[in-house]
């Protein structure tokens, strides 16, 4: 279990806010990339890299580390920003995102940058790799406490391969596998329940022999608690359905699927004109600390 003092929660929220600001700066510098997903997952990435994961930024290949797989590679700005703020590489390098010769490829590539466990981008194959890693670690040690965290989007659950992996994880009772789904309800073409409904999602995972928890993905204590519980499940794989607000922290982005694949400066103009979008986002993050919207589960 993970105990978080008020001070620790505040520190994590501060780091998450720094990461959100970096995400905006990166996207503005790149002129392309995804906005809503990275902002929505900033809290969970911060919690994992600053409090939960067994890892060592100075020794990214440490063999005893936990593994974090980002399956929906398109939200990599949040992965890159978190790795940089955690000390894997210089924060200044974030501004090279998507540029020619950059280590920060448009979608993450293993080997290009320290801390990237796998190449991803084409959706739906991360969980399969996480299953393989969980099995391999368990072959080395049946009671392994090395965990494999697979961070996934909700939209990618529409890929058939995901369900092949879910079926196999259930069959193999992978106790060290913890999938975390960014249930933000949007995908490029619209809301998930309009494009291809996923509900009842909890029931689906339960019927595939997963331990299922649902959390507010912006509540550090709630997510940490769920991860602690998932680690304690010894006869099943675990999934945490994290309800998040896409674009969290900036009101012009929040809950609007049109911000899934657009960077600030190229998104819809009904609230703020394009040239001002990035500045407005940074202004909000700096002045309100990224706490504009109340938790939607309240």
């Amino acid at each position, binding site marked *: 279990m993970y105990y978080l003092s008020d001070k620790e929660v505040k520190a994590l929220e501060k780091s998450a806010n720094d990461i959100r600001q970096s995400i905006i700066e990166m996207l503005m510098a790149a002129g392309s990339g995804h906005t809503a997903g990275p902002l929505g997952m900033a809290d969970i990435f911060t919690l994992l890299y600053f409090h939960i994961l067994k890892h060592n930024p100075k020794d990214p290949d440490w063999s005893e580390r936990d*593994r974090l797989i980002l399956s929906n590679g398109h939200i990599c700005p949040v992965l890159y920003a978190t790795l940089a703020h955690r000390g894997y590489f210089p924060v200044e390098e974030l501004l090279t995102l998507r540029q020619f010769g950059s280590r920060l490829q448009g979608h993450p590539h293993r080997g290009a940058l320290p801390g990237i466990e796998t190449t991803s981008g084409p959706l739906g194959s991360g969980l399969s790799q996480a299953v393989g*890693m969980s099995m391999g670690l368990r072959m080395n040690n049946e009671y392994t406490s090395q965990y494999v965290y697979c961070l996934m989007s909700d939209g990618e659950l529409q890929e058939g391969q995901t369900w092949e992996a879910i079926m196999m994880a259930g069959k193999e009772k992978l106790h060290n596998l913890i999938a975390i789904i960014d249930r933000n309800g949007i995908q490029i073409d619209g809301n998930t329940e309009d494009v291809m409904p996923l509900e009842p999602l909890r029931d689906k995972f339960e019927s595939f022999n997963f331990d299922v928890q649902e959390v507010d993905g912006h509540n550090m204590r709630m997510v940490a608690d769920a991860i602690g519980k998932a680690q304690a499940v010894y006869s099943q794989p675990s999934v945490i359905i994290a309800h998040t607000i896409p674009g969290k922290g900036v009101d012009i982005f929040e809950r609007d699927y049109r911000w899934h694949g657009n960077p600030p400066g190229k998104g819809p103009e009904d609230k703020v004109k394009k040239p001002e979008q990035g500045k407005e986002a940074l202004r909000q993050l700096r002045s309100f600390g990224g706490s504009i919207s109340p938790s939607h589960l309240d």
Partner: protein
Amino acid sequence: MQLAKHLNPKIFDNDIERIPNRDGFGDGLVEAGEKNPNVIALSADLTESTRVNLFAEKFPERFVQCGVAEQNMASVASGLAAVGKIPFIASYAMFSPGRSWEQIRTTIAYNDQNVKVIGAHSGVSVGPDGATHQAIEDIAIMRVIPNIVVIAPADIHEAKKAVLWAADYEGPVYIRLGRSAVPVVTTKDSPFEFGKGQIMVERTTHTKQSVGIISTGSMLHNAILAAKELNDLGVGTSVLHIPTIKPLDEEAVLDLAETHDLTVTVEEHQRSGGLGGAVAEFLSEKRPTKQIRIGVDNQFGQSGEPDELVAHYKMDKDSITKAVREVFSI
């Protein structure tokens, strides 16, 4: 003409032993598993017909049954490799790499994970199962992916050697196998060197015309039979066997092209994209050469007996000699 050392002495006999080359994979995998505890085998519900059953019986704790899910199998193997395992994934070539191409490209080859993809049941010689199960496009789709080695062994011995080599090699490998019993052309002592072709037949010299045949996989036997017939007809014919299609042994191909009037490639694959394509791409840049590509001509296969299908799609000995004779008008 001169035959390579270590060829089966019964090479020209009708009663030459015939064994599926997938048997060599089965034996080789067990031996690789004995040598290295990190070797793992994965199957997608085709354990016996791919001969993974031998490994699964001997090392049940290192065998992973994936069910009928080739895409998942490819990426699970990537994950196993990421934590230090050496996974061999086995299915029919039509399904793996056929169905799992993108997973192999992204999560294995681009991701640079040490996974060995075993595609059994390639070629029309799969036979009665028909075109849905006859992979004749697999060399093309694997060859075009960077960072992956493509090997098509001729027979059981070469398959075993290729598997043992692949287990030691660090990086993605595709090994192409067949279903039917094919002539055992080589012997246990025949050399197998990764990335190297091997001259199996050296032509009769002082002939008016000459032809260099380049074969891969189990078509080696037909190539050797055709070479004998052509040499007897007075066409100096050599055979270069290319088990490693990628990387191509460019030196051997160039040498053959420079020393013969005509180049012929022979493979149980579409005429486009496979060995013939690789040789044509290389020679067109280095030494534009007249080349005949023996293979399936832009068609799907069908049900039938292996030999009858190989003949129907013009990859048998007679089709090879006929194609050469037409060029030389003899």
